[in-house]
C-alpha cells in the first residue's frame, strides 16, 4: 500500500511540475513566471521529501530545507528587483 502511494505521489507531483513548467514558459507577464518558479520550487520540496521516504533516508531532508530557504530568498529578491530596479521607476 505504501509503495503504491509513493509511486502515485511521484506521478501527481510530476504532473503538477509539468503544469508549472507550462505556466513558466507561457507567462504572459514576468510576475506569472516568478510565481510559476516559486510553485515549481515548492513542488520540488514535496518531491524531495517523498524521495526521502522511498529511500528511507533522512539525508534528503537537508536538501528540502535548503530548497525552502533558497527558493523564498530567490522569490523575494526577484520581486524586490521588479519593485525597485524597474527602469520605469
Amino acid at each position, binding site marked *: *500500500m*505504501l509503495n*503504491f*502511494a*509513493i509511486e*502515485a*505521489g*511521484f506521478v*501527481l*507531483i510530476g*504532473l*503538477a*511540475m509539468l*503544469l*508549472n513548467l*507550462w*505556466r513558466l514558459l507561457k507567462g504572459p*507577464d*514576468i*510576475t*506569472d513566471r*516568478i*510565481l*510559476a518558479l*516559486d*510553485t515549481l520550487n*515548492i*513542488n520540488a*520540496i*514535496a518531491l524531495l*521529501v*517523498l524521495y*526521502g*521516504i522511498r529511500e*528511507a533516508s*533522512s539525508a534528503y*531532508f537537508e536538501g*528540502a*530545507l535548503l530548497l*525552502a*530557504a533558497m527558493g*523564498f530568498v530567490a*522569490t*523575494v529578491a526577484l*520581486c*524586490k528587483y*521588479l*519593485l525597485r530596479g*524597474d527602469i*520605469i*521607476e
Partner: protein
Amino acid sequence: MNPYIEFVVAALILLGALFALLGSIGLARLPDFFTRLHGPTKATTLGVGAMVLASAVYFTATRDGVSLHEIAVMVFLFITAPVSAHLLAKAALHRQAAKDGMDVDGTE
C-alpha cells in the same frame, strides 16, 4: 511497520500530492495573475505540509526516537508563503500601474 501507521503515511502522501497538483492546476488554468496567486499560496503549501507530516510519521515509526525536523520545513513554508504572495502581488500591481501610466502619456 504497523499497518495503521502505514495507512496514515500513505493517506498523507496521497493527500499532499493531490493538493500540490490542484494548486498547480489553479496556476495553469485560472484566467489572470491575481486569481492564479491563490492556488500556490494555499493548495501547494498544504500539499507540502501533508507530505512533510507523512515523512515525520514515517521516520518516527521506523527509527528510534522521534523525527521532528520535518516540522521545521512546514513552519518555514507557512511563514514564507504569505510573504512571497504579498511581494508578488505588489510587484504585479507596480508593473500594472507603470504600464497604465505609459499608455496614457508616455511617461510615469
